[in-house]
């Protein structure tokens, strides 16, 4: 990302090419070269991975031990289910804990149909399970149209309890307390029991699932889902019918999951409500988290890890010495195996939040590109040379010195470039500029807000000579920088008195004795959320003053205030300065700021375009700033 960053003045376009070259098939289409252009290859190319996959599965099914095959069958079923869940969670971004319930519906449907002579012929029970799953998906989607995030998840949690309850009742009514038996799957007169053939059959089902889901996600449906998952509101604003596509996602996903439940019933030959617990549902979310949300390969890899890990661990335990840790492990292997997912998911969330597959491929890509973007530190443009720091005579450092500050958001938004600012002690300095000029970003950079967000900062920010660039807001606050933000400057549910108590562990009353804060005395018991805009500003300034800041920064204090109130707040700020405080104002309201400030900077398009005393600046501050310095 930083490869094109050696910007100098003359740079015309800001286009930066990301280091990774496009590697998708689409871009190679118009590039005839050697083997790639041969017609046979191009016709075959899309099928090669499929052929390879099928071949690998056949070889595997014929060579693996029965024990491994038994486990692989479960892996394949889990993978189908996880891919189904991924449609809703990974692609459409809708949280669901209803996976176990949907699998249970498929399993019970199959168990019931497989007993009936006229309904049991392959693939009827599987298809009907899918259809019923899809219909149930439609039902789940109804609350999903209203609910978002965690509320939706809890609604699907309710589904879980309903289905298990119904299953329990069914088992109790029919006297099958230990589970509903399922006759083995048969195609023609061929019976499938867990083993080689069943694994091949499941492999075919997995392939079919991948094919279907891939067909959707490569086309418009996939794009709509991604758009909805990124921002439903924005998606509808550009024309996506969110309700329709959410419905579609739930139907498709539920149908696939129900089919996996049907296969699960055939595979285990028994269906019991006890299987389909919340933990079982969570396992599939964990599979997606582990493998990497949003990709089918992630769902498959996650299934492999989650299903096989307990077996692997049990094996390993057997090889450990039978005392100490080995003994402890083998005694508790059952619990450890059950608890392993929990530990795994925490480890993944903390150390590879993208999931295993994307992390591994990302690492590989980084390794491959190492060396490509080495020059990171040396590409600073020599701006400071072009624009020497203002020499101020005395050696005492200014309260605040900003040099060569660049602010660029990870989103690509550039807010500030090559900024210089200097705030002397006991002065009011104002930064003027229109909305979007980069003023607020400058303040946020100074106060440390940007250190915690996804922002790239460069340059120097010195508070009394100490560099605070990239510190957290807590740090800068502790160092003596206090910011009164543009909005959200008070805690709405805290009363005025509580604000004052928050600001000091001592007695807060002296601050109310100051004439300019008198107004707050009548409001002590009121929640700040009920105060007027002006009163909020006063309260914010009062609490800020109690923190005894080295530098008080006020963002757009005039915003939303009536002229009378602006005058009152301006008097307060001047009063604080007279008591010895240093103040940095950021303002859109030039008239107010020009009267208050001792020194003024004018910002435009992320840069300082002029500075001087208010008198010097007065006629340069115009609406259509044709200011060229």
């Amino acid at each position: 990302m930083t490869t094109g960053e050696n910007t100098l003045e003359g740079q015309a376009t800001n286009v930066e090419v990301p280091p990774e070259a496009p590697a998708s098939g689409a871009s190679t289409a118009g590039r005839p070269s050697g083997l790639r252009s041969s017609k046979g290859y191009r016709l075959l190319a899309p099928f090669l991975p499929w052929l390879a996959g099928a071949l690998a599965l056949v070889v595997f099914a014929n060579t693996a031990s029965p024990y491994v095959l038994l486990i692989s069958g479960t892996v394949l079923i889990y993978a189908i289910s996880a891919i189904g869940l991924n449609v809703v969670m990974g692609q459409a971004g809708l949280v669901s804990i209803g996976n176990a319930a949907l699998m249970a519906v498929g399993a019970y449907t199959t168990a019931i149909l497989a007993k009936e002579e006229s309904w049991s012929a392959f693939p009827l029970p599987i298809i009907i399970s899918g259809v019923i799953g899809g219909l149930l998906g439609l039902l789940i989607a109804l609350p999903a149209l209203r609910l978002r995030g965690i509320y939706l998840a809890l609604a699907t949690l309710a589904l879980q309890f309903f289905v298990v309850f119904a299953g329990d009742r069914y088992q109790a009514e029919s006297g099958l307390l230990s589970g509903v038996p399922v006759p083995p799957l048969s195609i023609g007169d061929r019976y499938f029991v867990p083993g080689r053939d069943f694994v091949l059959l499941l492999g075919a089902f997995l392939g079919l699932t991948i094919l279907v889901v891939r067909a959707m996600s490569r086309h418009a449906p996939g794009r709509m889902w991604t758009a909805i998952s990124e921002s439903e509101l924005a998606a509808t604003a550009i024309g996506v019918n969110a309700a329709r596509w959410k419905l579609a996602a739930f139907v498709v996903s539920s149908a696939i999951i129900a089919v996996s439940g049907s296969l699960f019933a055939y595979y285990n030959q028994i269906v019991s409500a006890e299987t389909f617990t919340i933990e079982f549902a969570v396992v599939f979310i964990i599979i997606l988290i582990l493998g990497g949300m949003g990709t089918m390969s992630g769902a498959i890899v996650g299934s492999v890890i989650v299903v096989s890990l307990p077996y692997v661990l049990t094996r390993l335990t057997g090889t450990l010495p039978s005392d100490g840790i080995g003994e402890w492990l083998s005694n508790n292997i059952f619990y450890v195996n059950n608890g392993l997912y929990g530990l795994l998911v925490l480890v993944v969330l903390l150390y590879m939040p993208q999931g295993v597959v994307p992390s591994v491929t990302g690492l590989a890509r980084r390794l491959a590109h190492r060396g490509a973007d080495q020059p990171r530190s040396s590409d600073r443009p020599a701006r400071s040379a072009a624009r020497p720091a203002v020499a101020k005579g005395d050696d005492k450092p200014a309260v605040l010195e900003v040099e060569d500050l660049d602010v660029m958001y990870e989103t690509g938004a550039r807010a500030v470039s090559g900024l210089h600012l200097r705030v002397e002690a006991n002065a009011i300095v104002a930064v003027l500029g229109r909305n979007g000029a980069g003023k607020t970003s400058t303040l946020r950079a100074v106060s440390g807000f940007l250190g915690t967000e996804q922002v790239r900062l460069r340059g120097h920010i010195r508070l009394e000579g100490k560099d605070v660039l990239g510190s957290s807001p807590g740090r800068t606050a502790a160092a003596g920088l206090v910011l009164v933000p543009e909005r959200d400057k008070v805690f709405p549910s805290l009363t005025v008195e509580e604000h004052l108590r928050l600001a000091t562990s001592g007695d807060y009353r002296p601050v109310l004795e100051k004439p300019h804060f008198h107004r707050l005395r009548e409001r002590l018991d009121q929640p700040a959320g009920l105060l007027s805009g002006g009163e909020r500003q006063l309260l914010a300034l009062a609490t800020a003053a109690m923190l005894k800041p080295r530098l008080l920064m006020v963002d757009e204090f005039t915003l939303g205030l009536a002229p009378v109130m602006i005058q009152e707040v301006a008097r307060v700020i001047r009063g604080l300065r007279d008591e010895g405080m240093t103040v940095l104002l950021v303002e859109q309201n030039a008239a107010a700021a020009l009267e208050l400030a001792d020194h003024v900077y004018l910002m435009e398009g992320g840069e300082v375009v002029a500075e001087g005393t208010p008198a010097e600046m007065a006629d340069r501050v115009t609406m259509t700033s044709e200011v060229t310095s």
Partner: protein
Amino acid sequence: MSNELAQALSGALVLGSLYAVVGIGFVILYKATGVINFAQGALMLMGGFIFFSLHESAGLAWPLAMAGAVLIMFVIGALIYLGIFRRLVGAEEFTLVIATLGLSVCVLTVSLIIWGPGTRTLPETLSRSELFSIGNLGFSSVEVFSIVTALVVVAVLDLALRRTRIGIQMRAVADGPLLASLSRVNVHAMSAIAWGIASFCAAVAGVAYTMRLSADPAGMHALGLLAFPAILLGGIDSVRGVLVGGFLLALAQSSAAFLLGGEWSEVVAYALMLAVLVVRPRGFFGSRQAVRL
């Protein structure tokens, strides 16, 4: 009033108080850190087991064992924040939910490894036979203790949040974490305390449950999940709401058990939750959030 109905009502009061105390911990944690905690049940269980061990194995008198258990759980809660959730600050809501699910599995596993899967029944600490009755609404000492403890915990927490400086700081963090850090509030410390409180509340419920019935892993786990309907009924971010929601849910469950049979109690709870979700997603007292484009 028939005897069964009276029993159902007194049962509802006890159950409601448990929901209330678990729920208030949940709400405090959610408001201060934005974490929706699915590990309540597991923490409850661990609290109950620690109490059991302190009382049965270490031989502490039950009030001491109880104090010990809830304090240990407070520390464990704070450590959970410092060890895990501190690193997930700023993560998406869903990521945090998954993390608490993972945490739940871990806490459960650790508990099962230490104490085993069986249900542990304590010898009677407080009498389980009827202490007094209002009309034919009978209460045993242990039930009264359970209700009173829950109410005291809720009242004390509510008071502490409103009156103490730490309480004010926590509410400040809940209102606006960024502004709080600008006001020199130690946001991490407050979050750790919030986790401590959530864990503490779960433990109080766990101890009360254990004293009245037994240290029963499945039962407590289910109860931890049932706190969700209770919380959603009241509104996920409302302390007042969770009290109302807790007792309302308990009442609904008891009536369902009374009218339809015990196995209906859980289903009715979730059906109620679903109805509230569809009709009024923010619960009865919850606040709305706005999305900006």
